[in-house]
C-alpha cells in the first residue's frame, strides 16, 4: 500500500432492518479478506478521491456474467479488475470423464455464438491422435458452415457493440441476419445453436435441399445486406467519436499479451491461424487477411471495422466452397467406440474471436486423459485492464465490447 493511502472501510450498518443478511461481505466490491497478492493489494487500496464501482455479474451488457470492479477518480477509471468464474461449469473436468464423441457436445457451449469452431479444434486433435484423414467433401462442408457461422458471429458483434453504446436498433438487424443463418444451419444440423455437428473424421449430415435453398436465398442478399448494415453505423458521428482513439493497442503489446484474432489484426499484426498454420482446405482457398492500424495501433473503431472486413472475406470463402464442393463421403470410416493410442495432440483453429486451441492427451482408453481448452476470449479479456487506464467510465463498454468477449468461453 502506498503511503498516504486511505484504506477502504466497510460501511457501518446501524439499522438492522436495512440489511437482512450478514453475508453482505461477499457482495461488496472490496473482498472481505486481506489482500493475498501484490496486485490485489495495489488495486484494493484507495488514494484520495478514489472509489470503487462494481459492475456486477448482472448488468445490461449482453456479454454474459462478468464482474468488473472499477477504481474511479471522478469520471476517470484509474484501474480495473475483472472477476471471472460466474459461468465456470467445469467443462475440462467433464471432458476427462466423457467419451470422445460426447466431448463434441460438451465443448459446444463454450463460445455458444460460434459453437462449430468449438467443435472443430477438438475434432482435429482427435483426428491427429487417431491418424485419421478427413474426406475432402467433409472438409469443405466444415469450412462452409464455419465461415457461415463466422459471418453470424461478426454480425452479432456489430449489434452488441451498438447495444452497449446505447443504440437499441442495430441489434434487431443483427438478429435478423443471425436468425436466418442459424435456420440455414439448422437444416443440416438440426439445432439452432449448439450444433453438435462435427464428428471425428467428418461431419454428421450431408448438405440437403433445404440448406442449399436457404443458403442460396441468403447469399443472394448477403453482400447488399452487409453493406447496408455497415452503412447503418459507420457514418454515425456519435458512434465513431465514441470509439475513435479509445483503447489504442499497438501490435507488440498485443502479441506480448497473447491476444489473437481480430483484436490482434486490428493492431496491425497479420496473424491468422488459417494462413499462419493452415488446416483443413484453407490452403486451396483464396482470401486475404485484413489488418488495420499498422504502425499506429488499433483503437476500438479499428476493431469494429476489421470485423466487417472479415465478413467480406468470409463471403468470398463461402462462394468458393459452394463452387468447388467435391463429391464423396462426408465422414471417414471409424469404429463406433474410439480408443486412440496413448499420445498428445494440439490443434488450433481460427475462431471468430481468435486462436482457439485444444491440447488433448490420450492414455489409450475411451476417455481422454486431459483436454485443455485454450479460449481466445479468455486471453483477450486481459487487454481490458490494459486499455482502460485513464479512460472515462463510459468508455469501459466501448473497449470491452470491441474486444468481443463471450463469457461461456472465458469461464469454460
Amino acid at each position, binding site marked *: 500500500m502506498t503511503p498516504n493511502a486511505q484504506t477502504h472501510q466497510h460501511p457501518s450498518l446501524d439499522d438492522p432492518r436495512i440489511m437482512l443478511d450478514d453475508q453482505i461481505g461477499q457482495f461488496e466490491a472490496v473482498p472481505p479478506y486481506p489482500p*493475498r*497478492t501484490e496486485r490485489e493489494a495495489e488495486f484494493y487500496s484507495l488514494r484520495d478521491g478514489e472509489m470503487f464501482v462494481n459492475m456486477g455479474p448482472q448488468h445490461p451488457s449482453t456479454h454474459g456474467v462478468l464482474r468488473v470492479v472499477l477504481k474511479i477518480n471522478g469520471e476517470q477509471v484509474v484501474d480495473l479488475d475483472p472477476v471471472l468464474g460466474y459461468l465456470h461449469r467445469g467443462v475440462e473436468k467433464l471432458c476427462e470423464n466423457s467419451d470422445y464423441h460426447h466431448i463434441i457436445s460438451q465443448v459446444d457451449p463454450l463460445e455458444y455464438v460460434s459453437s462449430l469452431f468449438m467443435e472443430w479444434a477438438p475434432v482435429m486433435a482427435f483426428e491427429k491422435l487417431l491418424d485419421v484423414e478427413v474426406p475432402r467433401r467433409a472438409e469443405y462442408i466444415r469450412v462452409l458452415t464455419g465461415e457461415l457461422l463466422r459471418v453470424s458471429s461478426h454480425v452479432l458483434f456489430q449489434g452488441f457493440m451498438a447495444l452497449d453504446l446505447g443504440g437499441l436498433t442495430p441489434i434487431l438487424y443483427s438478429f435478423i441476419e443471425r436468425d436466418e443463418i442459424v435456420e440455414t444451419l439448422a437444416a443440416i444440423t438440426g439445432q439452432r445453436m449448439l450444433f453438435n455437428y462435427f464428428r471425428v473424421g467428418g461431419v454428421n449430415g450431408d448438405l440437403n435441399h433445404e440448406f442449399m435453398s436457404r443458403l442460396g436465398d441468403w447469399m443472394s442478399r448477403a453482400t447488399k445486406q452487409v453493406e447496408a448494415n455497415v452503412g447503418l453505423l459507420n457514418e454515425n458521428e456519435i458512434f465513431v467519436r465514441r470509439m475513435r482513439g479509445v483503447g489504442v493497442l499497438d501490435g507488440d503489446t498485443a502479441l506480448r499479451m497473447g491476444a489473437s484474432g481480430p483484436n490482434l489484426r486490428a493492431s496491425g499484426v497479420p496473424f491468422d491461424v488459417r494462413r499462419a498454420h493452415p488446416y483443413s482446405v484453407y490452403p486451396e482457398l483464396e482470401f486475404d487477411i485484413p489488418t488495420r492500424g499498422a504502425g499506429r495501433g488499433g483503437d476500438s473503431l479499428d476493431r469494429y471495422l476489421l470485423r466487417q472486413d472479415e465478413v467480406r472475406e468470409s463471403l468470398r470463402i463461402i462462394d468458393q466452397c459452394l463452387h468447388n464442393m467435391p463429391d464423396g463421403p462426408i465422414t471417414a470410416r471409424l469404429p463406433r467406440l474410439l*480408443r486412440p493410442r496413448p499420445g*498428445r495432440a494440439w490443434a488450433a483453429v481460427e475462431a471468430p474471436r481468435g486462436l482457439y486451441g485444444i*491440447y488433448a492427451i490420450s492414455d489409450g482408453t475411451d476417455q481422454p486423459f486431459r483436454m485443455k481448452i485454450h479460449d481466445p476470449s479468455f486471453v483477450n479479456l486481459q487487454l481490458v485492464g490494459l486499455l482502460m487506464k485513464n479512460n472515462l467510465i463510459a468508455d469501459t463498454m466501448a473497449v470491452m465490447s470491441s474486444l468481443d468477449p463471450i463469457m461461456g468461453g472465458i469461464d469454460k
Partner: protein
Amino acid sequence: MDRSLRTRLEARFADRLTGPVRQRHDATEIRVRPADVVEVLRALHDDAELEFVVLADLCGVDTGTHMQVVYHLWSAKTPDWLRIIADGMPREDPRCPSLTGLWPGAEWMERETYDMFGIIFEGNRDLRRIYMPPDYTSFPLRKDFYLADDAARSPGGGVRHMEQTHVPAQATPRVVRRTVKA
C-alpha cells in the same frame, strides 16, 4: 514435421533438454526442467532463427505421479507448433517460474493453472483464483479430485452409468494412415 527444426533445437538447447525432441504430425515437442523454463522460452523468443513470438497456450497437466506445465508456441520460421513440457514437478508442492516477465498475457493462464491444479508460479504478481470462489479449498482438475458420481475412477464406485457402453479389448486400429512428409 519439420526435421530442420529438430536439429536446430537439439543444437541450441542440447544441455537443457531432458528428453529427446519428438515430432508427430505438425507438432514438435521438447522437455525441460521447470527451473529452465524462463531461460529456454526467452531464447526461443529472442533468437533470430527461431523467433517464437506467439504464446498459444499455457496449461497444467496432472499425470497422476507428478505435475507438468505445457506451453505451445508458434513461429513464422517453421511450419510446426512447438510444445514445451516442463516436467517433473512433485504433486505436493508444484512450483514453476512465471512467464509474465516475457509474455504478460500469461498471467491469467497461470492463474487458471493455479486454480485448477495448485501449481505455484513464482513471479506472478497476481496468483489468486480466477474461476472458483476465493475461499475454495480444492483444486478441481487434479486427479485426486473426483466428481460426485465418477464411477470409473473413484474409490466409491458402483454408481450406475446412464448408458453402458461396450468396451472393446484393444485400441482402435489405424484405419487410414495420414501420409505426412517431413
